[in-house]
């Protein structure tokens, strides 16, 4: 026997009870014994008169007066007492929805009942206020729910409504979102309906689109092989070239992303927030310098720094320090310094200049970002993680004395999450940059401006498009020395590690759009300003 459990979550007055009432009237659940557990009392009462209708069904309403906690034993007792077919549990949004859901993951309970649906009821008018003030609570239950009902939609302007909708989508993309509509009908003045907002067409459509493209390419190649061996070989060669570049960047990028993810996971789990803040000096400027030099200790290149910076910012390290670390680490990392020394043998000034300019730009961009960003502004793109963690480590006030194994496990699971989060953007970025690397052809006949400014811009643009790893770009840059002045090649060396296609896509994936746009703009502005003024003989 499987008892279906419906969990209805929402704040006081969001319309939970009305929703349950309308569910109880539904055709679907006739002839069932139903138990409604109310964890709180609102203005609305369950229509118990539904009991008296001709159908053979029974509705029991249990009010939990607050002194008893809903737990596994409690549920078992109810099941024993009433032998229901279906249980509705009405939960106040202020309670931790994870606890309730976890009850039904316990073995003894799992045998007899299963969660049929988790429904959140949201009053769209109050939503922005709740979301601002109790973000973690709200996002937890939105994240957990499979169906989201929006109430009071008509009272909101279209623009605001779409913003709310976007906010919800951000947290939980897979849930069905329904809105509550009152149909004004003359006979029955209050017929209510819940209308699905958006069918998940895209949910099925996009993977098919990707697969379709893939199948198309494969079939294209195979038909070519039938038709003409030569053209086929030609295409295959091009593809192989692309494949080689793409796969090799992935092979060497994944380990670095993993290292970055582990560092970020360890920061999150093993170091408590207070202790961590102490590591950074109080003075913002000093902490920036620390952050810039921290790159010396982490031999990771540009792919690995983004997860670390994300982890730092999650731990509420000042933005300035986080940004500085993210920008400076690829340049000051030991491997890339050695590579630069090697590529520019006998031109020590290039190496020194690269490191110093890198640090200066990183720090100033960090400081500018700090002052440009409001204190409470939310810069992380926190779509996935919120609410997902039951590990207890993600809360700020976790207990220190949890077992070692649990900690290690949490580190690995978090690193895995981070890896999947960042990895997908890294793959897209790599894909694009390998296309650029295999197709962009630079003829020597290309127009090469004599003007310092425009050639610097060209170099910066090339660095952006090619997105070579910071450990090897010195060798590529050396090739440009023939056509460009050393000053503009500097642009390639300094801006390349901070900003490129791969990086940008990863940034957009992990930070808010506004923040990234601002960051890119400031990086370009500052580095252009610094580089144009420094003359290297």
């Amino acid at each position, binding site marked *: 026997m*499987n008892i279906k459990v419906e969990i209805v979550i929402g704040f006081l007055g969001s319309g939970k009870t009305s929703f349950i009432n309308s569910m109880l009237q539904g055709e679907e659940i006739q002839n069932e014994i139903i138990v409604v557990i109310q964890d709180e009392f609102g203005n609305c009462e369950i229509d118990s008169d539904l009991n008296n209708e001709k159908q053979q069904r029974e509705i029991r309403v249990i009010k939990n007066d607050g002194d008893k906690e809903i737990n596994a034993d409690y549920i078992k007792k109810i099941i024993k007492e009433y032998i229901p077919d279906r249980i509705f549990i009405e939960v106040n949004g202020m309670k931790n929805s994870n606890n309730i*859901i976890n009850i039904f*993951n316990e073995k003894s309970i799992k045998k007899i009942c*299963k969660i049929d649906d988790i429904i959140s009821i949201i009053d769209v008018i109050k939503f922005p206020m709740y979301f601002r003030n109790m973000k973690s609570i709200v996002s937890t239950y939105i994240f*957990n729910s499979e169906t989201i009902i929006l109430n009071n939609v008509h009272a909101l302007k279209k623009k605001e409504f779409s913003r709310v909708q976007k906010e919800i989508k951000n947290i939980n*993309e*897979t849930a069905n979102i329904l809105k509550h509509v009152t149909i004004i009908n003359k006979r029955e003045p209050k017929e209510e309906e819940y209308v699905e907002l958006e069918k998940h067409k895209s*949910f099925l459509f*996009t993977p098919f689109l990707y697969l379709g493209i*893939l199948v198309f390419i494969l079939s294209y190649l195979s038909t070519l092989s039938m038709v003409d061996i030569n053209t086929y*070989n030609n295409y295959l*060669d091009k593809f*192989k*070239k692309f*494949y*080689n*570049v*793409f*796969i*090799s*960047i*992935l*092979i*060497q990028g*994944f*380990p670095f992303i*993993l*290292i970055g993810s*582990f560092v970020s996971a360890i920061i999150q789990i093993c170091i408590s927030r207070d202790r961590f803040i102490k590591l950074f000096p109080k003075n913002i400027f000093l902490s920036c310098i620390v952050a810039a030099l921290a790159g010396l200790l982490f031999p990771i290149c540009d792919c690995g720094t983004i997860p670390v910076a994300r982890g730092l910012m999650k731990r509420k390290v000042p933005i300035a320090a986080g940004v500085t670390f993210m920008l400076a680490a690829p340049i000051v990392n030991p*491997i890339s310094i050695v*590579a630069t020394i*090697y590529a520019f043998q*006998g*031109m020590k000034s290039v190496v020194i200049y690269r490191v110093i300019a890198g640090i200066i730009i990183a720090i100033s961009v960090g400081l500018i970002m700090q002052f440009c960003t409001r204190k409470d502004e939310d810069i992380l793109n926190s779509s996935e993680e919120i609410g997902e963690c039951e590990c207890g480590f993600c809360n700020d006030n976790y207990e220190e004395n949890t077992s070692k194994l649990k900690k290690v496990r949490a580190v*690995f*699971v978090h*690193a*895995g999450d981070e*890896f*999947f989060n960042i990895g*997908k953007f890294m*793959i*897209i970025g790599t894909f694009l940059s*390998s296309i650029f*690397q295999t197709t962009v*052809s*630079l*003829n*020597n006949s290309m127009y090469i401006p004599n003007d310092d400014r425009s050639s610097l811009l060209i170099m910066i643009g090339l660095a952006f498009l*090619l997105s070579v*790893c910071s*450990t*090897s770009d010195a*060798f*590529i840059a*050396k*090739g*440009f020395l*023939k*056509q460009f002045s050393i000053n503009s090649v500097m642009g390639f060396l300094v801006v390349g590690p901070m900003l490129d296609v791969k990086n940008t896509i990863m940034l957009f994936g992990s930070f808010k759009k506004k923040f990234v746009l601002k960051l890119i703009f400031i990086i370009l502005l500052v580095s252009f300003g610094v580089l144009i003024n420094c003359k290297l003989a």
Partner: protein
Amino acid sequence: MKKLNIENIIKILILLGFSLFYFRIIVNNEIIKYVHPRIVPFVVLGMIAMVIIALFLIKDSFYSKKKKFKIKNYIIFIIPLIMIFFMQSTSAESTTITSSDINANTGSNITSNSNLNNVSTNNTNQDNNSNNGSTFDLYGGKTETDGQGISDKKELDIKDNVINVNSKNFVFSLDEILDNPDKYVGREIEITGFVYKDKTLKENEFIVGRFIMVCCAADLQIAGLGCEGTNLEDYPNDTWIKIKGKIKNDTSDGTADPVIVVEHMEKDLNPDTSYVYPF
């Protein structure tokens, strides 16, 4: 009733897929075709980490809190995996085709690579039509040669007054010779590599080179020494050769560039085609 957490299972499959691929290329040592040996320890580390993450995820995969999940996120990870397995199978096929095909195949493959990595003139020059008249400034051709290399202690491999250059000491020898062109004038040299010709070189000139890798296959470049020889028609691009010759200084464009005057040249039938790594 146990319900599998599909999302977790896909994650596990992706992680295992990648670590399997890593494992495979590490075992057949194919990995040095893709990345610099310096990165290999990181790759091993990454492989182990992925397996461990997958193991930890297995524990969670027997119940699911959510019915639906976004497959979109994972399609992106699956695409490279599909590409890998597709390419691995085709490259296996190409070796099983008839022997005449192999030549054509590998030849064209290398060509495409060398096109991509035109000697340090320009690393992304795909079509190779560099029109400037200057001779090749090969990798390591320093603009300032103050002799301050990082490897002063090493010595060239000189036997019976012949400088021996193979894949092991290729980069160092190249640096040393290019750095001190005057010191080695008139010395005999033996070198293996492949033929690289393009339009900027004269009829009787070619470059004996090897691919050098700094970080990964994305930055492969050709490094080599300029040579002068005869009967070059017999040696098309990308043939592996053994050369014996004397070093001379070519001062035609103002700077001194060491060039090998070929005395003896033969095809290397069993070449050591491995890439070379500068550090």
